[in-house]
């Protein structure tokens, strides 16, 4: 197969913070160096893009020396955590912004779908917007006319087609917008996580359509998503980005497991230290999956442990944790003595308490455990020092076919296998 995209040494430098009067100074400085034939002075001070660490410079490398090529008919999944540079890479590939260094070569028409409904004008009708949006995406008018009926059919908003889109519900709006994009006839299709919208039925329809595009029609697809099950079904190869660097590329299953394995390190699965007051010290907190081999899947039990020492007997001790979803919903508040009716008084001892989140309880997503140690109605002994966080993925778990979308803020599966026979 021919190579259709070649990416050589691509880097992208971004400036953080506010743009103000300082910008002019930087620009003049840059222009002066250029005039003397020197390198851009701000290239040197660029830093690795790790959003969790406070940097010293205002310039970060959102992407650094990325090399890869894509063969015709490949479906490439681009994965990585938030801020890894996925969207920047898509922007460069779809020519929205130019790279700082390097070169991208492509063969064929590129259509990018970084958002659905780009250029929709609220005052225009659905019909008018199909034409406008199609043209913005690079379709010719007669191409749109030819596919008009199919587009309307796919979107399922036929009844509203001559109504201004400002009167549409947001679901209808998205349906119409995706329908236009789905009928693009480009050799290369670039898709960002636009599928996080719309109802489940429509999402399934879109994923199916994308599968047709890459498998059936032999077109090349680049797909960014956090949804590992969608990525592994749709794509055959993958690229794993981390802090702007390309960590790994190759077969999609290897890439997904590399990402999942590595992903855990970035989270805080364990805390070791010595926090507390003169009565009670917390020494270790840890969260781990029962299935040590595969890690944090939705279909495995997850255990949470807290270890410490009681130096003097404590009355009315509160010892437990709050479970937060990635959208900062408080999902559960659990105490070690939930089974008791009264608050307990614990004698001097070394303790280790273990809690279990049963399999198929939580949906795919990121979770935070905030430990709560204190005296009931009196004192909070620790704050957030010992907090942990972990992510769950749904690869082989229940309910992955019609994914309970973490993107929609849903956090619970509450599913056991009810099928008996």
């Amino acid at each position, binding site marked *: 197969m021919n190579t259709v995209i070649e990416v050589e040494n691509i880097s992208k430098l971004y400036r953080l913070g506010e743009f103000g009067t300082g910008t002019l100074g930087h620009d003049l400085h840059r222009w002066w160096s250029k005039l003397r034939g020197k390198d851009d002075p701000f290239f040197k001070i660029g830093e690795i893009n790790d959003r969790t660490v406070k940097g010293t410079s205002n310039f970060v490398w959102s992407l650094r020396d990325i090399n890869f090529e894509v063969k015709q008919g490949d479906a490439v999944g681009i994965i990585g955590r938030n801020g890894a540079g996925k969207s920047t890479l898509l922007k*460069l590939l779809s020519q929205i*912004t130019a790279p700082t260094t390097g070169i991208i070569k492509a*063969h064929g028409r590129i259509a990018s779908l970084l958002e659905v409904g780009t250029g929709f004008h609220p005052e225009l009708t659905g019909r008018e917007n199909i034409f406008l949006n199609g043209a913005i995406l690079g379709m010719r008018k007669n191409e749109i006319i030819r596919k008009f009926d199919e587009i309307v059919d796919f979107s399922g908003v036929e009844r509203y087609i001559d109504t201004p889109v400002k009167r549409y519900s947001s679901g209808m709006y998205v349906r119409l917008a995706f329908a236009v994009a789905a009928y693009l006839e480009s050799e290369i299709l670039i898709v960002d996580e636009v599928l996080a919208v719309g109802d489940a039925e429509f999402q399934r329809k879109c994923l199916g359509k994308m599968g047709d595009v890459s498998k059936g029609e032999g077109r090349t697809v680049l797909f960014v998503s956090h949804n590992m099950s969608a990525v592994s079904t749709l794509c055959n190869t993958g690229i794993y980005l981390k802090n702007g660097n390309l960590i790994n590329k190759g077969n999609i299953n290897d890439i997904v497991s590399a990402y999942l394995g590595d992903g855990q390190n970035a989270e805080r699965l364990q805390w070791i230290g010595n926090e507390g007051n003169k009565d009670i010290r917390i020494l270790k907190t840890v969260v781990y999956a029962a299935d040590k081999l595969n890690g944090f899947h939705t279909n495995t039990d997850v255990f949470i442990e807290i270890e410490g020492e009681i130096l003097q007997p404590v009355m009315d001790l509160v010892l437990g944790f709050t479970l937060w979803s990635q959208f900062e919903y408080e999902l559960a508040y659990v105490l070690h003595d939930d089974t008791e009716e009264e608050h307990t008084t614990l004698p001097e001892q070394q303790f280790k308490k273990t809690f279990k989140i049963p399999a198929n309880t939580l949906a795919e997503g990121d979770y935070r455990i905030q430990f709560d140690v204190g005296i009931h109605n009196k004192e909070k002994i620790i704050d957030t020092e010992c907090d942990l966080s972990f992510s769950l993925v749904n690869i082989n778990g229940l309910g992955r076919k019609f994914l309970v979308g973490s993107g929609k803020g849903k956090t619970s599966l509450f599913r056991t296998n009810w099928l008996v026979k």
Partner: protein
Amino acid sequence: MNKTTTAKNIESSDNYWNIVVKPAGSVFNLKLRQAWHYRDLFWLLVRRDFVSFYKQTILGPLWFFLQPLFTILIYSYIFGSLAGIGTDGIPRPLFYLAGITCWHYFAECLNKTSGVFVDNAHVFGKVYFPRIIMPLSIVFSNLIKFGIYLFILFVMMAWYYYKGEIQGMNYYALLLPVLLLLMAMLGLGIGMIVSALTTKYRDLAFFVGFGVQLLMWASTVVYPLSAAPAKYKRLVGINPMTPLIETFRYGFLGAGSFSWASLGLSALIISVISIIGITFFNKAERTFIDTV
């Protein structure tokens, strides 16, 4: 020869890669061939600008006629009846209409193109198409308004001609396409410079609003060049819009001052501004989305 080598050969040929993205491209390349592919988009944008202007209004396209008519009324009252500025012997409504026909076209082109990056950031940030399409569509959709002004002008000219208050058009009216082109280039040129700079520095956006107003008083919109005081005449004359408006009036209404020399100078200044505009625009186009 096996299959891989064939593939490699195709890939190494220059024409294979139809899209090449580099950090710095040529600043003079307008990518007109690419833009040609998007000609349907161009017309749809022109149509969108026109249609969305009067959607959900009762009077609809009639608004395009009401604006110039009210403007003439006010100008005739303030500059004619109150200030008593001469009009080279042309009936006042005609004189002002000829002036604002040209001026509005230029000013609209300038105002709209100067915001093209900032206003369309939401689209430009998500989809690539040759950016030049946007300013070009602005110039064209304003042409529709210009046509309406011109139509009103013709109707009024017919009326005054019938009353015998003006002489007819002369051959200089045939310069209209040239005048239009120059006005569009000037509006586009300044607009593109401003649009490129405002992606980083918003200061200019504040300036454009009243700058256009100020420039209007320095052009012969509400007064004839002959009425300008001698010491300011050169200043008003060097303003590239002045010869355009004067030529327009001279051709259509047969009054005003016209000289090939001043028109030539204006064309020269406009060409320089356009080239600077294109350079700025092309440079900004590539990475403006990072700073806008």
